[in-house]
């Protein structure tokens, strides 16, 4: 377990340039987390999992996907630990290691977003929603909001494309 703990910890440190052992588990992050009520595990517990090297517990928690990235925790942390950055790192590791995301909706949203980005260089809402729905199979969600959004011209029919979209694709492929 010790070895596992060390490599896991090292990967997190490599990505974030900060050591989770600096967290003293005060729970201020959890106390102020806006999505606290929707989390399997409070954020401080995710840090604790990593401190203990509990790889699976940390990466299979839905909390890493439910983090909204609002930075409330990071900005109030008495130890200046950037928890949002830490959560990003865990998502990356989970994807690299092909660990089934505990919250598939968020994961699929990001996936759909990236697909748009790769295709057009920008996010294209209609495509995003279509791709997301294709991924989740949840066709009914937002059916009530959509018509009004169309009517108000909020969602355009044609995607905005970047001229250098091939380059964007290349950037994405090289960065991952």
């Amino acid at each position: 377990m010790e070895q596992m703990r060390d490599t896991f910890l090292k990967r997190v440190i490599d990505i974030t340039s900060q050591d989770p052992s600096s967290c003293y588990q005060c729970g201020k992050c959890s106390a102020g987390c806006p999505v606290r009520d929707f989390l399997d595990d409070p954020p401080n517990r995710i840090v604790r999992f990593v401190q203990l090297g509990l790889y699976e517990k940390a990466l299979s928690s839905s909390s890493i996907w439910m983090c909204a990235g609002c930075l409330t925790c990071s900005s109030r942390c008495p130890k200046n630990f950037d928890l949002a950055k830490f959560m990003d790192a865990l998502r990356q590791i989970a994807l690299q290691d092909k660990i089934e995301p505990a919250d598939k909706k968020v994961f699929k949203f990001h996936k759909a977003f990236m697909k748009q980005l790769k295709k057009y260089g920008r996010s294209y809402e209609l495509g995003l929603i279509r791709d997301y729905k294709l991924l989740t199979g949840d066709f009914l969600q937002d059916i009530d909001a959509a018509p009004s959004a169309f009517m108000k011209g909020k969602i355009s029919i044609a995607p905005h494309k970047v001229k250098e979209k091939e380059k964007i694709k290349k950037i994405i492929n090289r960065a991952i």
Partner: protein
Amino acid sequence: MRIGVFTCHCGENIGKTVDCPAVSKAAADFPGVVHSEDYKYMCSDPGQNLIKQAIIEKNLDAVVVGSCSPHMHERTFRKACSSAGINPYMVEIANLREHCSWIHDDIPSATAKAIDLLRFAVERVKFNEPLTPIKVPVTKRALVIGGGISGIQASLDIANSGFEVILVEKEPSIGGHMSQLSETFPTLDCSQCILTPRMVEVYQHPKIKLMAYSEVENVEGFIGNFKVTIRKKARYVKDELCTGCGLCFQKCPIKKAALSEFDEGLTTRPAMYVPFPQAVPNIPVIDKSICTYFKNGKCQMCKKVCGRDAIDFDQQDTLIEENVGAIIAATGYKLYSIDKKPEGSIYQGYGEYGYGKYKDVINGLQFERIASASGPTSGEILRPSDKSVPKKIVFIQCVGSRDESKGISYCSKICCMYTAKHAMLYKHKVHGGEAYVFYMDIRAGGKMYEEFVRRAIEEDGVKYVRGRVSRIYKENGKLIVKGEDTIAGVKVEIDADMVVLATAMIAQQEAPKLAQMLGVPYDKHGFMLEVHPKLRPVETSSGGIFLAGACHSPRDIPESVAMASAAAAKALVLFGSDILEREPVVAKVNESTCAGCLYCRKVCAYNAIEIKEIKDRQGNIQKVVAYVNSSLCQGCGTCNATCPSKSVELIGFKDDQIYAQIHAFSED
């Protein structure tokens, strides 16, 4: 010169990363070294005996010890050598522990460095010369700065031993923070009841000269011989005439002129006031900034009612000089403020707790005043905003403390205990009230301390929640406290009526200024530094200056009192002898080469350089040269570096001694 080198393993401390036998062997080959050996503990009795034996057997006349920092054992080894017949100043220390073995991991490079350090010391000692300590007389009087419980204790201990004490307090009364407290942990005895007799004792003591409402303005001199300038601030009341009847401030028409410092801003006070009824000395002061007379020349009510004619609007600050032999700093602490921009503070405020904008979010000292029988509510627990009884109260620990994002990394040590006390007092006074304590750890090390905290939880039913609070805001007249219990892993949100923050203990804002004046090191938080954290905890690196109480670090009453007595004992040790020996590190002028330019005089901070006239046989002045008064010289060596003709040298740190070290460098 016959030099002996002694390499210490310091158990494993040096030996683990420095190959001591190899170092010792290398040192044996240094030119001038006739003896070299290593031993497990050089500072131990057998270790010292090895040195003494070698001195006698090998007829050594200089010794180099490779060991811990000279700040640690230089004295020990000098003494040992001296007893074997070598002048103590013929001993040099190479710092193989703090500056080598403890800071490196790699054995070959640490060993090489150790050899270098020893070679430097060997080369240097070749230029050392036998010296005799300088003898100076001791002024057997002490200055105590700060009249809180620490200063009071130190003053009484010294005075009761028969020596004079000058006690300087910047506020109008002595008593400090302890006089503000309600009851003290873990015994719950009344703070004022135990403190006031001590305050009166100070006032009446024939050996104590109390100077309240005064501040130390300047400190000159050195151990045994300090000259201190004290500013006695104008009270606008003649203390020799005032009887403390109180008529003057009762009649002062500017009733609610300012927030009461003593009540931590919970009440107001008139323009003329004594901080609290038991004040010592019981002499009022006029707050010039708000007094009507000082503002527009009218009123003079106090003067009219004073039967003794003690009011003196023309009084001025006076500067008083005192000679003392020892100084005890006991300047105490203040509380960290959560305000957005506390004036002059080096710390960030607490926006997430409202930056002090909610009246019912108070600090620990304010709660003390509320809980105190002599306080604004006569001890009844009422919240400041509407004077109602808070049915639900939340205490939050570590506000500022252990919070690097606000600039404070340390633990304030006393908050766990006083918070338990506050919660307990609340539960005793408000029946049916709910008390919550948010904490990170409970640090209750101390006699009966842990038992006290358990009592608050088990007997008084205080609810302890392990976690920090993220935010406090006001909604529908309640203070919403957003927290988390990290043990249960559940959100804890409380709609409280009042919140008490255990804010960090921080150094007084003026502490660094005083420390600079005293030549005492201080840390980045403004706390003054002891010379050794274990063995010399009340002494400072400036001889004759000692520390007592919270000016050193956060501490509670019993610890402050103990430290104060320790500081007093150190002063008394000093007063135990009439003559003091000082290091002979002083500057000396070579009169034959001195051109009399007197640049040295300009840079000397101690006025130690005098002008000496060189006369011929007829008494005609041939030239003037600089002359160092060695009893004033403190040995900084600035004159030495400044002298264009190299005619003034610092004994013990002469140019050739330092050059020898630099030359030794080229040999690696």
